[in-house]
């Protein structure tokens, strides 16, 4: 008899339960061995970890605690970033006027001033002012939770949900990584053993907003969604909106995972062992320093590196004329009808297209687009910032759609490159681009058409 034939015979004999029975039996035997072969003398067994696990991974409290933790991290980030962000904006506004004065003093040509100050300086200054403070708070806070040992518990809690949609529990860990950077998270999916479930994790990772999109989400949530509130309440509402956005992204993750595992990526989730390490008091100082120094700084450097050339390019496009309008305006006018359909506009669509290399630059490009054509308002504070958007016909609906599009749209260039490197498949890389794009178009379209149909706006 051939081995293949024998395999078929064996499979006929086998049941779906068999693997579970084998694993169960191994566990029982291990337990028995430990009971006989090990004694705990000082009763020093780690009861603290067990007690905490009973709370953190409890079926009742597990999820509420997760929500609260997530909300707390966001709240600290938003509330804490407000003041330094506006201080930085003020500082850069002052610096800009000083630099302009210097250029005038040197009789520098107008185009040079435009390109370097209005293009390069403004673009990068905004990236820094808007993104640095939230990042400098978000990363260390998140790192503290991570070092404390809470994240594996999140994976444990989420496991059941992921299994239900046919995905792998470890996907929640790669998602947590995605909050920092989707490109890094795609590489981190290597911890998922089965290729099928790994593909699910790769294709859906994008629905977790990376730090490049945090800036955008935080700015619009606080400018438009929490506009009627002030002080602490404002931060709280902004937090609520952000938690909602993140939950929506997770919902989409589940939906897409479920859909794919019923269609293109059929299969049953595999077994795996998740190590729940003991809780450790994190070295707070070390963690904070390391997280701010390495993560925040490197992300910022990357953002500036990409934003600087993009800023110059945008300024150039906005100032080279073909016929009676600039290249930028031609592109904007071309994209405008489609953008309007989604409750957005041509500038926003163009910002997202030019923002393909990095999500960090979407907002600066959008701002420069608006500034280059509208009135030459100097953006010195957050209030001025809102005025620019209002001048271009923004409403809460535009802001909501912008946030949703940012949450759901195609991954950035770096992430796509990593997806190709990890999957070695052009087809799946294209799918990783296509799936989010379709969703990012369909959802704002539905929302906008519904809102307009009912005349809510």
């Amino acid at each position, binding site marked *: *008899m*051939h*081995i*293949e034939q*024998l*395999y078929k*015979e*064996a*499979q006929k*004999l*086998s049941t779906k339960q*068999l*693997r579970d*029975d*084998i694993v169960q*039996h*191994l*566990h029982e*035997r*291990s*337990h028995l*061995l*430990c009971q*006989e*072969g*090990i*004694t*705990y*003398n*000082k*009763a*020093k*067994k*780690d009861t603290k970890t067990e007690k905490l696990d009973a709370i953190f991974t409890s079926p009742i409290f597990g999820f509420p605690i997760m929500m609260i933790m997530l909300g707390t991290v966001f709240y600290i980030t938003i509330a804490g970033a407000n003041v330094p962000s506006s201080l930085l904006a003020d500082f850069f506004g002052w610096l800009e006027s000083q630099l302009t004065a210097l250029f005038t003093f040197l009789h520098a040509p107008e185009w040079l001033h435009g390109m370097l100050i209005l293009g390069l300086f403004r673009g990068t200054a905004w990236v820094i002012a808007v993104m640095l403070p939230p990042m400098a708070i978000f990363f260390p806070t998140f790192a503290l939770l991570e070092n404390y040992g809470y994240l594996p518990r999140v994976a444990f809690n989420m496991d059941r949900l992921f299994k239900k949609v046919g995905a792998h529990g470890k996907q929640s860990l790669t998602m947590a990584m995605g909050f920092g950077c989707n490109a890094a998270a795609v590489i981190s999916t290597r911890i998922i*053993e*089965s290729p099928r479930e790994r593909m699910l994790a790769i294709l859906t990772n994008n629905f977790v907003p990376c730090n490049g999109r945090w800036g955008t989400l935080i700015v619009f949530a606080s400018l438009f969604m929490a506009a009627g509130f002030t002080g602490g309440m404002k931060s709280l509402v902004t937090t609520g909106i952000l938690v909602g956005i993140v939950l929506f992204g997770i919902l989409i993750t589940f939906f897409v995972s479920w859909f794919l595992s019923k269609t293109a990526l059929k299969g049953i989730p*595999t*077994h*795996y*062992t998740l*190590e729940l390490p003991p809780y450790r008091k994190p070295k707070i100082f070390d963690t904070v320093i390391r997280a701010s120094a390495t993560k925040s700084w490197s992300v910022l450097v990357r953002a500036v590196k990409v934003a600087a050339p993009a800023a110059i390019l945008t300024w150039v496009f906005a100032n080279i004329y073909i016929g009676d309008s600039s290249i930028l305006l031609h592109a904007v006018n071309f994209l405008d009808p489609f953008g309007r359909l989604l409750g957005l506009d041509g500038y926003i669509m163009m910002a997202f297209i030019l923002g393909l290399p990095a999500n960090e630059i979407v907002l600066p490009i959008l701002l420069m687009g608006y500034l280059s054509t509208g009135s030459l308002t100097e953006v010195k504070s957050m209030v001025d910032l809102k005025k620019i958007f209002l001048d271009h016909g923004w409403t809460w609906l535009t802001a909501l759609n912008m946030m949703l599009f940012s949450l759901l749209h195609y991954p950035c260039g770096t992430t796509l490159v990593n997806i190709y490197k990890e999957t070695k498949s052009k087809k799946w890389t294209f799918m990783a681009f296509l799936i989010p794009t379709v969703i990012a178009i369909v959802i704002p379209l539905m929302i906008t058409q519904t809102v307009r149909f009912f005349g809510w706006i």
Partner: protein
Amino acid sequence: MGNEYRIALAGNPNTGKSTLFNALTGLRQHTGNWAGKTVSLAQGSVEYKNKTFQFIDLPGTYSLFSNSKDEEVARNYIVFEKPDVTLVVLDATSLERNFNLALQVLEMTKNVIICINLIDIAEKQGIEIKERLLTNRLGVPVIKISARNKIGFPLLLDTIDRIVTGAIECQPLVLQYPDEIEEKIRQIEPHVRAIVGDHVSARWVALRLLDGDESLLDEINRLITLKGAS
């Protein structure tokens, strides 16, 4: 080179397997590639009583069900490359989880040594391990070590020596499954033996076939072709 022996190191991740490997072999290491696999395994040698022990550091895994590439590499090495001795490194502070892997290795191969590592930390935590009792239960030597402090190395090397010279005969525990599964194994096992002979454990192959391990078929076919050629 009749006195060179291959010793494979298996174990869960984070059990100090690589610490043990490094402590034993020092700088006498190199990285070897294995036929048909792009995964490379670190190797290092130790001279002991006129013998050369080649240690091979297998990937750290929680199980050997071939869920992942790592598990497949470790499993294939133990079963098909047939090292002279397989060391299973366990973490003394979480033995219950670690024993799973040890039990799986015992099903796959005969010459096994169970190394309970991190014994210094376990003792601090008040965990007392009766290695004699475990040796009796498992049918293979159980040794307590601390790779970091190089505790237990002489006994470990001596035990390896005595296994390869045949002074110790390992009789690994045969894990009995519920009757229902045992019955199925009984039906498959003789057919497996007819195909693979004594080269690999027929009982283990039978279990894996029942479990639906398709990747094993290729390995067995390769084994049969090799045997046919020689």
